[in-house]
């Protein structure tokens, strides 16, 4: 491992959102490139299926393009696999237990989270 003090200083001056944007653009570009290789599809064939010029596809693959969800959906349809995936976190429901007066995840509560408990929760706080 070798680092460079001047480079590290430059990195420290880059706004976190720029780092994130570049990282995301590169990840998407790499993913499309890998899917094209997997499908043994040339950039020209891909461009034709996408209705784009080959030069535009080439630019996409360098990571210098910000994709819209519409374009990402079309790429996924053409290549048969999703390009990006949104992490799905299981929903955690909270219920109010009047006797104790604190919130707890619904998994630990054997009753359903219903309108009645929600109303009680509101009333308790309002009063």
């Amino acid at each position, binding site marked *: 491992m070798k680092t460079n003090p001047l480079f590290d200083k430059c990195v420290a001056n880059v706004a976190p959102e720029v780092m994130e944007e570049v990282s995301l653009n590169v990840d998407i570009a790499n993913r499309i490139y890998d899917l094209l290789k997997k499908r043994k599809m040339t950039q020209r064939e891909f461009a034709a299926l996408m209705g784009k010029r080959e030069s535009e596809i080439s630019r996409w693959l360098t*990571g210098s393009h910000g994709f819209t969800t519409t374009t990402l959906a079309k790429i996924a349809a053409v290549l048969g696999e999703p390009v990006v995936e949104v992490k799905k976190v299981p929903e955690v429901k909270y219920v109010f237990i009047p006797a104790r007066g604190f919130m707890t995840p619904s998994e630990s509560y054997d009753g359903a989270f219903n309108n009645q408990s929600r109303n009680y929760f509101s009333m308790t706080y309002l009063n």
Partner: protein
Amino acid sequence: MYCMGKLELVIESDNVSIYSPKFDGETQTEFEKFMSDNGSLPHPQLKKDFDAIIALIKKMVNDCGARENLFRLEGKNIKAIPLCIEQRRRRGVGTLRLYCIRISERILVIGNGGIKKVRKYEDDPVLLDIVDKLRSIEHQIYIETRRAHSDYEDYQKVKTIIETITI
């Protein structure tokens, strides 16, 4: 034709080894000169270009290496690091470019760069000189690699060549 010098290892990680030419009598490598000269450009668009270049190199170092698809071909094995951020560009501002030789996914030689205001780098004498120097270096690495009966994918052999040649 050019000053003598060496290729100096500037950054290394598990993903990529980055070298840069350092000419005799100079205190900085070409990549360090690029960072010193362009690190505080006053125009916000050019500042954003610089940050995007730095962020891309950081991404290569930390994560994906010098993947083939991430470079813009500028002719005869010389590549430019593209700007990984799309933005509206005001006329006359130009774009910041950094030129390099991509040997393989694990070896990258970064040269100098500058603001490109012309359509082709050949029309700018400063940029043309940077690219010509890199072209000459790439030719030397290629000749030495051939002489060693190797190819650019042989990481250890090419690394040894790069660290020993005089440019």
